[in-house]
C-alpha cells in the first residue's frame, strides 16, 4: 500500500531517513542526475498517503542483443517500512518496464554476499545467483569475513523474452569472477 510515482531530483531533499541506513549509500548528486537524465522511466519512489517517501528504486537498461537487460542499481526501503511488500512492488514494476519499454531479456542486480536478508528476499522474487563478483564493494568495517563483506552476488531473473531461461544458471554461486570483468 503506497503511492508509486517517479523519483525526482527534488526528492534528494527528502530521502534522509532511507539513506542513513547501513546498507544504503548516498552518492554524489551527479550520480542521481545521471540516472534521471538517461533512464527517468526506470527510477521510482513509493510514498505514504501523507507524502513521506518509504523507499526508492534506481534502475537502468544496458547491453544489446542477448545481453539486453534491466539493471537494478539501487533499491532501498526505510527500516520502518520494511516487510510491507514494497520491494516486491518495486521489482515487479521494474521488471515490467524492462520487459515492455526496454525489451530486455532479464533483470539483474548486485548484492553484498553478507546481506542474507536481501538475498533471501530476491530469491523469493524469482532471482538466482548468476555469479559471485570478487571485491565488488568497499568494506563496511563490520569486522565480518572480509571476503563476504566485499564480494557481491550478481543475481538475475529471466523476463518474457527469455522463455528458455538462458540468462540464468543453477550453479551461479560456484562461479567467481573479478570486479573488472563485469560492467
Amino acid at each position: 500500500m503506497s503511492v508509486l510515482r517517479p523519483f525526482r531530483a527534488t526528492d534528494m531533499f527528502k530521502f534522509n531517513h532511507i539513506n542513513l541506513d547501513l546498507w544504503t549509500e548516498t552518492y554524489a548528486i551527479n550520480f542521481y542526475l545521471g540516472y534521471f537524465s538517461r533512464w527517468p522511466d526506470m527510477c521510482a519512489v513509493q510514498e505514504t498517503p501523507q507524502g513521506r517517501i518509504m523507499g526508492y528504486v534506481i534502475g537502468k537498461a544496458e547491453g544489446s542483443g542477448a545481453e539486453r537487460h534491466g539493471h537494478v542499481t539501487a533499491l532501498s526501503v526505510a527500516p520502518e517500512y520494511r516487510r510491507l511488500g514494497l520491494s516486491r512492488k518495486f521489482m515487479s514494476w521494474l521488471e515490467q518496464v524492462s520487459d515492455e519499454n526496454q525489451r530486455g531479456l532479464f533483470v539483474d542486480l548486485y548484492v553484498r554476499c553478507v546481506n542474507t536478508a536481501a538475498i533471501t528476499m530476491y530469491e523469493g522474487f524469482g532471482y538466482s545467483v548468476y555469479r559471485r563478483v570478487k571485491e565488488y564493494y568497499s568494506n563496511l568495517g563490520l569486522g565480518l569475513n572480509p571476503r563476504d563483506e566485499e564480494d557481491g552476488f550478481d543475481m538475475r531473473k529471466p523476463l518474457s523474452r527469455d522463455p528458455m531461461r538462458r540468462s540464468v544458471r543453477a550453479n551461479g554461486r560456484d562461479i567467481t569472477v573479478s570486479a573488472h570483468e563485469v560492467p
Partner: protein
Amino acid sequence: MDRQIRPIYESLDTGSNKSAILACNKVLKKQPNNLLVKALKSLALVRSQKVEEALLLCDEVLASKPVDDPTLTAMMHVLRGLGRHMDMVTMYEDAYKQQPGNEELGTQTFFANVRIGNWKAAQQIATKMHKQFQDDHYLYWSVMSALLQAHDPTTPEALRTVLLKLAHRLISSSATPSYYNADRFHLHLTILRQLGLYDEAYEMVESESGQIVCSSNLSCDELRREIWKLKGLTKEAGEAAEKRILEAKDRNWLEFLAVLDATFADLTSEASDVEAAKVAVSERIVKAREFFGKVVEVDGMKDRSGHLALLELEKRSRQHGLATDSSALHSLLESYFQSFGGKSCCYEDLKPYIEFEGDDLAKWTAVLEKQTASFTSVPDLWRYINAQKLLRYNLSPSALTPEAESQRAAKHADVYLDGLTLGRDLPSYDLQPADDLAILSAQAFVNCWKQTGDESYLYNAAALLEYAGFRSKKSYQIRLHLIRIYRLLGAPALALEHYRSINVKQVQNDTLSHFILSRASTFSLSSVGDLTYTSECLESSRIYLSNSEETAEFIVRAFSGEKYSQLPDFIEFEDRLDNSLQRDLVKMEHVRMRIAHEPINSELVDMELIELKFIFDRVHHDNRDFDILANYQPRGVTSFNQQTEFLEKTPSLGWLWVFLKIYIKAFQLASDLDDSVEDKLLIGDRPKPSYDPETKLPLNERLATRKPEEIAELTPDEASFYDYACALSEWLTPYHDYTRPPPSAVLAEAAKITEQKTGQTLKGLEIASDAASNGHSKKDEEPPVVIDPPALITKYFDDMTQRFKQAQEGKLFPHELLHIVTLTQEAFLLFVIETTRFKTSSVIKVNKLGALAQHIKEIRSKASAVLAEISAALVSYSEKEGTAERRKEVVEACAPITSKTGVRSFHCRDCTTSLTAHAQLDHDFILQVAKRITDARKQITEHVGKGLVRVCKTHA
C-alpha cells in the same frame, strides 16, 4: 603540432598544472599567437588558482574570436572555472555567427544559454536551428525553452500565456506525433494542461497510443490522472480505479483515493440540491464500504490498502455528517491494530484517525491498554510499542505532570531493557527492535525537563540513549536525539561525535547539517585556534560548489537526451540548492567564527562584504529536514524538535536577514570598496538579479529596515546584540564616510597589487592623476563633529555582565551561558571591525578626529575589562565541571534508569566501543556517560573562557 599539444593535455588530465604551464610556455615561445595553447595555459592557470594571469590570457583568446572546436572547448572550461558564463555565451554566439552552417556550434551555443537559464535566447537559437537543419528535436528544444521561459519567475505574468501559446503552436507543427517518445508526449500534455485545454489533453491520453505510453511511464500516468481530475471526471476516475483494483490487482493508493473521491464527489462539486446529494452519497458510501470490504477479504494481511481505505471512508463520512454507525470507526481501528499492530508503520498509519475526546477516547484507550508488556516475539513487542505511541498521542495535559511523565519514562526504560532480550542474537550492525522504547522514554524525560527546567531529566535521557546507541550502533535516530540533548547540555564535542558517526554525505549536508551547525559559533573554539567547527562549515558547504559546477551539465544532458520531463525538476533542484537557506546560515556562522580567529584586514572585510551582499539579494529556499527527528509527544504538546531547539528559536530567514544586515553594515564601514570599485574588481558573473521587488530598494535603506517578524526569530540576547550593532554603526558612519579614501585611490592601489603579481596593468582602468595620495587627500569639507557614543554601547557590555552572572548562578542552562559569552565576544569583535580604520594615527591626525579616538579607546578598554571578568569566571566554572562531585551529581540524577539489581546482564558480541566495555545500563556505564558530559562541558567552557582573553589581546 599534435606532438607538442598532446603533453599539455596529458598534464591537464592528470592534474599536473605546473608541467602543463611549462609545456605551454615552450610552444608559445615559438608560436606566440597559438590560440589553443593560450587557452590551455589559461586553463592550467585557473586550476592552479592563478586567477589574475589566467584572466589576461583568457581575455586575449576571447578577443580573437576563436571558432575551432579544441580552443572553444578549452575556453569553455576556463570560463566555467572563472564563473564567466555570460562570456561563454558570447564566445559561442560569435563562433556560430562566423560559421552559421556548423550544426555543432549551434548546439553548443544553445547549451551555453541553457547553462545560465537564458531561455529566451535558447528558444530563438533552437527555432533557427530547426529551420536550418530540419531535425525534429530542435523543434522540441524550442518548445521546451519557451515553456521554461514561461515558468521563469522573472518572466512577466502577461508574457507567460503568450509563451505557452507559442509552445503550443510549435509543438502542433511537429511532423511526427508526440507520442512517439514518452518525454515529448509528456511535454505536449504539460503545455495543454497549462493552457487549460483539457479536452484536447484528454483525447490525447485516452487515444490508443496515449494509453500505451501512460501504462508504462509513471510521469505520463501522473499527468493523465491530473487531467482526468481537471476535466471534472472524478466519478469516472473512481470507476476506472475500481476496475484496476479488482482486475489488475493494482494496490497503488492513488487508485483507492480515486474511489474515495468519487464516493464523495456529489458533495464536493457544487450541488444544487444538498439534501438529494447527501442521499446519493450515503448510498455510494455503502457501496464503497462493500467494495473495500471485498478487497480486505481477498488481501487479508497481505496488503494494508483495503483496511486503510475503510478507515479513510469512515473518517470522511464523519466529516460530512454521514456516518451511520458511531462504533464503526472504533471497530475498524481495533481490527487494524490487531492486524497490523506488529508492523512499525502502524502508529503513522493510524495517527490521522485517532483524535478522540471523552467516551470515544476512553474506549480506544481501553483497547490499547490491553496490550501488555509481556511479549515473546518481535511483532508482539511492536504491538506493545505501537500501543504506547498511540496512547501517548492522546494524553491530556493533566496526565502530563512531571511526576507522571517521569514514571512513564522509567517504565519505558524498563520495558526497553526487557525488549533487548528479543534482539539478543542479532548481529551488532542490526537495529534492536526495542529501540523506540528508549526513544519514547527519552522524549518523556525531555518533556519533564521542558516543564521543570530540571537538567537531571536530560541526563537520564542522555544516559539511556547512549546505552541504546551502544546496543543499536547504526541507529541514526538515537544519535540525532543525542545531538539535540548534548547541545542543550552544553557538550558540543559529544554532539559532533555523534553527528560524524551518522556519516552525512553529499546533498545530505544541505538538509542535515543544521543539526550541528545551527548557531555553531556558540560552540566554536576558533578564538583559541581550534578550527573544528570552522572546517565543518567548509566541509558541509562543498556540496554547493558541486551543484554549481555539475548540475547545469545534467540540464544540458537532459536536453540532448530529450528527457524533457526531468528538466523542471533539475532546474528547481539546482535553484533550491544554490539558494539554500542552510547554505547561507552556515556561511554566516563561518563569518562569525572567522573573525574570532583571523586578523581583521581589508582582505577579509572586502571579500566577506561582497559575498554577503550577494546573499542579501537571494531568494532563499529552506531545504532543512526537521521531519527526520521522530516525534512521539502528545498532540497537545510541542514537538520533540521544537522542544529541543536551541533556546526555542530555530534560525530561519528572518534570523539570517538580521545577521546579514549587521555584518554588511559593519564590513561596509570598514571597507574601502564602493560599488564602482567592486564592479571593476569582480571576476566572475554577478548573480542573476533577484525578482524579489524588495531587493530593488537602495542598499542602505534595506540595511536600516528593522522588521518585527525578523526580530521575532532572535533570542532575547541576539535582539540586544542587534540593537547594539545598530547603535554602533549609526554612531560611526559619518566618520567612516569622511575618512574613506576616494574610489580612484582604491583602484590605484588594486592596480598596483595586480601589477606586482602579474607584471601587467589591470585592464580597463583609467586612474585619475589625483589618486596617488594614498587616501589622505585634502578634503573640501570640515570633518564631522565628534559626538558622544550612544549610551547603549557601553550599557550593552554592562547588561551582558549581568546576564552572565545570572547564568552562573544556575538560573540558565549551559547552552545559554555559552550563548551569552560568545555574543559578548562578538560585540567586541564587531567593535574592532568598525574601528580598525581609526587605529592608524595618521588617519586620526589628518582628519582631525582626536576626540573620536579617545571615545574608541574608552569603549575598548571597557569591553576588554568585561571580557576579562567573564573569562576568569568561566575558567573557574569549568574547573568545577571537571570534578568528581559534579560527576556524582550527574550519576545520582540518573537513578530512575539505573538498574539496581544487575539482573539484566547480556552478553555482548563486541564490546570495543569507545564508551564502555560494559554491557549493562548500570552505575559504571552511567558514570562513564557522566564523565564524558562533564569533561566536554569543562573543555568548552575553559577554552571559550581563554579565548576571550586571547581575542582582547589580539585587538588591544
